[in-house]
């Protein structure tokens, strides 16, 4: 099973790369001239070269050779040169990607945990007052991430000053592995993480609730009661099985969370990929846009694989299938 998933991700990666290669070459008109026209003021030779490379113009090669060349460049880690920053895309990304991975990783794990635990309780204590959480969570799920971020930033950051905002750490500490910095990192991360968790928790919560309700109707849960186990253990019996579909969906949800989280970064001025992507889009910095897209896709695929491994560990039935 794991092998199947791995090959799926490889195919997906190939599709993403190929789309990335083809899109600029399918653009009508002469984008180079347009772009150069937009870059008012002095256009360096480097910039023109970067644009030409990105669009595959002026290479005097057929599409196939260009494609091969494109792969070559990718494999050596060359993602082209940013038009506006005039630096290699890969080095731009290197400084931004860890922030994004950290923020989204922490938020996703937290959201999954919080949602799963509350969903478990909602499913078990169905019909209790806890049920009023459902419409509330549904509402937060429907609010666009960036809007929630803006409101949260405004209310708790700018007005109430409960949380520090803008950026990933206080300007007064020097980055490094010491307590002040880590503390500052956590403090600055709180609001963005809360925003992402609030927006994404409802999915986990409702999915888990529905699965719990389905599980409670299973015989083995009744048997857990018949065995005289304390309620906590009975709930665990049901939850241990109910969580499996959630974990199976984890890999699919990561893509959605990433999409939303990129915008949260934007709102909070977090130095991750989101901010970079917006800048790139506004400046029509195509090599950068493409680089970001590729890196995001690859990261998401890697996260998917991780989630699949997790599922593999949790469900013994998949393991035997693979063994047999």
């Amino acid at each position, binding site marked *: 099973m794991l092998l199947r998933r791995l090959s799926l991700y490889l195919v997906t990666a190939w599709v993403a790369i190929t789309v990335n290669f083809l899109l600029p070459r399918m653009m009508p008109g002469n984008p180079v001239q347009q772009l150069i026209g937009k870059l008012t003021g002095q256009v360096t030779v480097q910039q023109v070269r970067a644009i030409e490379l990105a669009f595959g113009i002026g290479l005097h090669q057929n599409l196939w050779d260009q494609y091969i060349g494109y792969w070559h460049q990718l494999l050596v880690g060359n993602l082209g040169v940013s038009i506006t920053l005039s630096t290699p895309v890969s080095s731009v990304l290197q400084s931004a990607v860890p922030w994004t991975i950290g923020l989204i990783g922490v938020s996703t794990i937290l959201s999954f945990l919080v949602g799963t635990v509350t969903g478990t309780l909602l499913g078990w204590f169905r019909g209790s007052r806890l049920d009023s959480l459902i419409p509330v969570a549904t509402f937060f799920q429907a609010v666009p991430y960036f809007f929630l971020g803006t409101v949260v930033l405004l209310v708790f950051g700018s007005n109430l000053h409960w949380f520090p905002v803008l950026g990933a750490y206080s300007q007064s500490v020097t980055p490094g592995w010491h307590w002040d910095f880590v503390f500052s990192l956590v403090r600055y991360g709180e609001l963005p993480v809360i925003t992402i968790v609030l927006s994404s928790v409802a999915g986990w919560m409702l999915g888990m609730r529905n699965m719990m309700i389905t599980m409670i109707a299973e*015989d083995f849960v009744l048997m857990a009661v018949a*065995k*005289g186990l304390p309620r906590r*253990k009975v709930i665990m019996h049901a939850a241990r099985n109910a969580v499996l579909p959630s974990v199976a969906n984890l890999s699919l949800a990561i893509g959605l969370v990433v999409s939303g989280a990129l915008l949260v970064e934007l709102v909070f001025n977090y130095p991750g990929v989101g901010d970079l992507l917006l800048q790139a889009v506004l400046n029509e910095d195509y090599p950068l846009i493409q680089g970001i897209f590729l890196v995001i896709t690859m990261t998401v695929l890697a996260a998917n694989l991780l989630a699949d491994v997790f599922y593999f560990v949790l469900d013994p*039935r998949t393991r035997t299938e693979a063994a047999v």
Partner: protein
Amino acid sequence: MSERPTTSEATTLEDDTVLAIEDFCVDYGWGDAAVRAVNHVNLSVRRSRVLGVAGESGSGKSTLVYAATRLLRPPGVISGGHVSLTFDDPTSSDAKRRTVDLLAATPSELRAIRWSQVSIVLQSALNALNPVLRIGHEFDEVLSTHRPGMKKAQRRERAAELLSLVGLNADRLARFPHELSGGQRQRVMIALALALDPQLVIMDEPTTALDVVTQREIVNELAQLRARFGFSMIFITHDLSLLVELADDIAVMYAGNVVEWAPANDLYGAPRHPYTLGLLNSSPPLSGERRELVGIAGSPPDLSQPIAGCSFHDRCPFAFEKCSSQAPELRVLDDSGRKVACWLHDSPADVPVALRRRPRDATRVGAQTPSNAEGVV
């Protein structure tokens, strides 16, 4: 004897009765939508004895035992009666017997009794075992919950010992349920049910999902285990011939009512209720002569509609006017203590020949001797 204990008899009978079900009613749904699935049932399970419960699908056998142990799921509601469990109190030093009213028990009281005094085995062991937990975990959990003093190694040892009782190797403890065959799973469930030396083990069609050979093996094993450990048992099945081998008494249920109660051999050799006769005719004989199998014509009544008279009257070959207007009650038939709910026996002269056979003598060994300590089979 499931004679209703009168006050004077109570003390003597209490020593004998493990589970007493009196005037027990169970509904599905409430208010106007309620459907009576168990209707004024009286039964008792005696110490170290096996009560067999037989009846067609939908006759309320499972409902009866789940409700009696308070395990019945919604929309099931217990709408009347009493259920009490008598057991040797493990907490008192002089091993006094204690009686608990199961219908009045608090959740924590029930939890303490469950599995340590009453355990249950379901029809499908695949669904009864948690699919993501190892077999060993199930044993460990039960033992650590009810025997907090036991150490991990002791628990493991006990689990291995229990598995060997049902003929399984201890290496199965590391397996997951889906890695075992149906028969193995059911054996695991039986071993698990015996883990805490309960007073009463309830088996709800434990062998129905298995092939005939495995079914036979497991029933034999059960008989041996019971003889060895002396627990009481309720064994539910729709296969009467299986029950005759295992049960001391048999109750036959139809549409939520117990229509006949008798010692196993009496019932098997000499049924007194037309429905019992029909059931016997539709199940393969225990041994010897081949017999033509005939099903019972018609199908069980729709419980959501009120039934006038005897619930079996429209399928009964011997029905007469009274049957469709008045419901018969379960009454003692003769001095052997057997009971039947049928109007036919009001006038002994008119009882059809098929329902007045004399009980043949024991078709099996040991089952009817009062003490079951000696070997069976």
